[in-house]
């Protein structure tokens, strides 16, 4: 800090700093006025709050919108709805028809198999199917509401009474002693029955 020696009108530096700042000079030259320190502007603009998101959790409404788009008739949702007595259950034999070159509806491929599990996850609900093709087990997990899935057809429902299914996930089918084998016989029988009906 610098001080003016009024007697000899010299600037005496009284601080350890060896330079004069703007504020210290202004204090010396006009000691009676208020020091030229920075003061905040009187008006601080306070803006209105931005509108927040329309809803706190957007997932339910988004899922509903996508369901309306991908499952217009509600058939696919009915296949896995828990209160539907005709829903797909583990142990059923099911054929899934998918478009091979979506969005073209020309080519359709089929995969049939035992339902060994249903993964219920809203729009991403998946069916897990297992079949034996040329003596090799093949498992396919198919997203039910995918637009590439055209149709899910239940081929066979109830297993023989001595083989009642008591699990939700039938991963024990992978073991050789519980493997049900190929569903080709059921698919063929179902196809024949459909042809006879026509």
């Amino acid at each position, binding site marked *: 800090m610098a001080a003016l020696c009024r007697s000899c009108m010299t600037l005496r530096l009284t601080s350890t700093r060896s330079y004069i700042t703007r504020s210290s000079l202004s204090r010396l030259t006009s000691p009676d006025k208020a020091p030229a320190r920075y003061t905040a502007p009187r008006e601080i603009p306070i803006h209105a709050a931005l509108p927040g998101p329309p809803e706190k959790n957007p997932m339910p409404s988004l899922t509903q919108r996508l369901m309306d788009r991908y499952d217009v008739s509600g058939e696919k949702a009915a296949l896995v709805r828990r209160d539907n007595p005709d829903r797909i259950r583990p142990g059923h034999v099911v054929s899934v028809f*998918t478009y091979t070159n*979506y969005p073209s509806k020309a080519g359709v491929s089929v*995969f049939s198999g035992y339902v060994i599990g249903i993964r219920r996850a809203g729009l991403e609900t998946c069916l897990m199917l297992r079949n034996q*093709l*040329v*003596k*090799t*087990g*093949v*498992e*396919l*997990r*198919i*997203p039910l509401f*995918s637009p*590439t899935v055209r149709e899910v057809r239940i081929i066979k429902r109830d297993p023989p009474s001595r083989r009642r299914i008591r699990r939700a996930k039938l991963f024990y089918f*992978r073991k050789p002693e519980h493997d049900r084998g190929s569903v080709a016989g059921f698919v063929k029988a179902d196809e024949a029955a459909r042809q006879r009906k026509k």
Partner: protein
Amino acid sequence: MIGLKGRLNVIDNSGATLVECIQVLRAGSHARIGDEIVCVVQRSRTVGVTQGNQQSQQKVKRGDVRHALVVRTKKEVRRPDGRYIKFDDNACVLINNKGEPLGSRILGIVGAELRDKGKYSKILTLAQRVV
């Protein structure tokens, strides 16, 4: 997901029945369906009565180092439409450097991922079923 020491069944008639992977020809990860590997033949079909006839000589024996193409994996593979497919075993087909199979027949199913690779059309036509 086939890596070093992974064992695969051989499903062609080249002579080998079981191979062990020693190198995955895919940068930095494990082999999936449609990837090539270098493998060592661990078990091969016994020839039986050796006849010195060209046709009855099998092409590969135990200890041979060959290239192979993975055609089935136990680890599920994702398809572009969101489906996942997995098989009950890991299987491969022995191939040469150009991608042509060493055997003349393929017994069993192969994964449809081979179609995306482009150079395995011969294997796809030989296979009994493409899933």
